[in-house]
């Protein structure tokens, strides 16, 4: 407030009285939502929901959010493409569009802030650092006590970090709901490392792990299609794949002779180009299983290259059920199991294509 006043005094006075300027400064910043205000809005929403149910002729007691969405879509039909721009009737209290928590008011009716570190400007960050340093001191005290009793362990138990990493700056900002600078983040990490360096840090394991992010091995996300047996006792598995706008599905049968059928036709006729057949061959060749399986493929959409890519992905996924885990990991690292995210970029108005601009004419 004081700073703003001084800048107002320095800048040339264009118009208006000091009273007007003070009113402008007071309105700076977004509107603060108190919990009472939020509560009142929720009550109004409930009443509105009952009115809507009555209007639609449905039971007000059992009117769920889906029914609300349906009714609003019926009453206010919108042709907008962006779904988030359409009419909405919903209560969202979490960190979202409607009532972001950081905008919740931080002081009471008497103007006294709730948090003791409010006047630092970054209350949550400093409270975290304060908490962290308190734990560091606690661990040191514990160590001194052990040393005094003579029970200091020669090989102290370390915290099992496993495959985890520290929270990134963005993640920490999201958690603290306030912006922090990179220097602040570095101090935080340094203090955490200092805590970890101490011998008896296993006391604070839970606190440390709560600020670390687990890195899961990617292959654990891969869903292996189940291996089924058909009437003749032959193993087979089915999988689907996609690429651009093509969707393909493959049934891989064991004890075969390397025959392929695509949409009922021989693959030599469906894919006359060598490149497409090489794409189909790649997963089988990579695993060294060329003559073993019979493949029955069906594919639709897209062009020849994207259909071949979709089938390739489907074959790789289907092969996973015939292979051990390590081979599956090798396939993933080879890039056979990753769906290609590239799709056609839309054409923008004012440009000739997605990226190409109109010819620039000087005059």
């Amino acid at each position, binding site marked *: 407030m004081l700073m703003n006043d001084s800048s107002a005094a320095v800048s040339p006075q264009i118009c208006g009285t000091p009273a007007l300027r003070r009113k402008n400064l007071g309105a700076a910043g977004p509107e603060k939502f108190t919990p009472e205000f939020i509560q009142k809005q929720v009550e109004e929403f409930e009443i509105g929901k009952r009115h809507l149910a009555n209007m639609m002729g449905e039971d007000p007691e059992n009117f769920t959010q889906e029914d609300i969405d349906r009714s609003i879509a019926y009453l206010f039909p919108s042709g907008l493409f962006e779904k988030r721009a359409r009419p909405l009737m919903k209560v969202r209290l979490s960190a979202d569009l409607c009532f972001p928590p950081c905008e919740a008011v931080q002081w009471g009716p008497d103007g006294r802030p709730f948090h003791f570190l409010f006047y630092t400007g970054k209350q949550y960050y400093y409270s975290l650092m304060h908490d962290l340093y308190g734990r560091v001191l606690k661990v040191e005290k514990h160590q001194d006590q052990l040393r005094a009793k003579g029970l200091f362990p020669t090989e102290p138990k370390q915290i099992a970090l496993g495959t985890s990493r520290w929270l990134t700056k963005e993640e920490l900002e999201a958690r603290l709901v306030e912006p922090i600078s990179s220097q602040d983040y570095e101090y935080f990490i340094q203090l955490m490392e200092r805590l970890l360096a101490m011998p008896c840090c296993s006391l604070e394991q839970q606190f440390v792990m709560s600020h670390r992010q687990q890195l899961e091995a990617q292959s654990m996300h891969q869903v292996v299609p189940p291996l089924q047996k058909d009437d003749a006792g032959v193993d087979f598995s089915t999988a689907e794949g996609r690429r651009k706008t093509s969707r393909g599905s493959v049934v891989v049968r064991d004890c075969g002779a*390397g025959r392929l059928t695509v949409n009922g*036709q*021989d693959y*030599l*006729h469906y894919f006359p180009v*060598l490149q497409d*057949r090489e794409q189909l061959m790649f997963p089988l060749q990579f695993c060294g299983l*060329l*003559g073993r399986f019979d493949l029955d493929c069906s594919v639709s959409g897209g062009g020849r290259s994207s259909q071949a890519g979709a089938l390739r992905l489907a074959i790789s996924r289907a092969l996973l059920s015939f292979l051990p885990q390590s081979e599956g990991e090798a396939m993933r690292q080879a890039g056979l199991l990753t769906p290609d995210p590239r799709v056609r970029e839309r054409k923008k108005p004012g440009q000739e294509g997605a990226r190409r601009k109109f010819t620039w004419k000087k005059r």
Partner: protein
Amino acid sequence: MSLHRLAFRLRPTVTHVRSLHSSGYVQQQEAVAVEPEPESVSVFRTQEKDPACHSDKHVGQFYTLSSAHVRPLFPDSLPWRYQQQMKTFNETCIMVRQPALEVISYLKKADYSQPALRYVFYGLKGTGKTMSLCHTVHFCYTQGWLVLHVPDAHLWVKNCKELLPSSYKLSRFDQPLEATTWLRNFKITNEHFLPKIKLKERYVWTKRESTEAGSSLGELVDQGISRVKSSSDVVGAVMKELRLQSGQPGADFRLAVAVDGVNALWGRSTIKKEDKTAVDPEELTLVYNLRKLMKNDWSGGAIITTLSQTGSLYLPKSAYLPQDLLGERGFDSMDPFIPVSVPSYSEKEFESCYLYYMDRNWLQHPQSRTEEGKKELVFLCNMNPSMFERLCGYL
């Protein structure tokens, strides 16, 4: 018998070897010094040069045509890629396959006093129909037949540079260039027959030129080659004479009519008249005369044909059966005929072809010489002969 033991020590892929005991073949990859044969004979080759002696035990093996036969027999009639291969490898090797053997056996057993039988090779694209036809034609040649070989009937119905109205019949059109080319090739192929066959009728070409009855076929052919304008009619005359004479008791020759792409005769053509309307193949002299030959109202020979989608006009790529390619009219004209299906390579034939390319050092890539590489090749070409050949061209 040491050779007998040798049979069991061969690789599993070559367990089909049958004629070890008779011809003394030695596996070229095995470093066995049991019975060192002086020539490097291999499993995929056969020494039998005469198609008449080819039998089931030679299926999958390559036989070499002597150059003395190749030059006259196929002046221009082999597939283009095969001609390139001939030049590269410096030899002409054809694989003995089941469809050709079947037709040759029928030819051997047929009764030539009956009307001529029609054989039609059909199959998917690139499976070896033209090569089977050439194999059969070679057989006919070695047996001393008169070979009337039309390399590709599609060439007569498309891309015609000169179209003349026929002097003989006003509604028909002549193609002098194609006719002269064909007459030249015919002359090279049947050199020794030309002086022997005498004409039965008199042909008048212009007010001053005519060919008398009793003159030899050679003169007629020369007339056609020198006088380009009337060459199409000469072709018609040649065909008529041969058709009339082949069944006669006095004739000492048999006529083999070999046409590649016979579905062109009953299809559509891309040739346009001056008023931009399309020409029906019937209105072309060459096609008209060839159709007359296709009818089995003559005896003393055989008609061997192939269906081809590759050069055909206005036909979908997936068509390969006789019904689809010949159309209604063609099927009715050709009916009854003996259809012979030409499939892709079997395992044995593929192996044989692969060994042949290895022997000729055509596969240079080190990966292609391994087992893994072979499996990849099998997958990529799906045992289709022409695909395999194109694929190996890159390696």
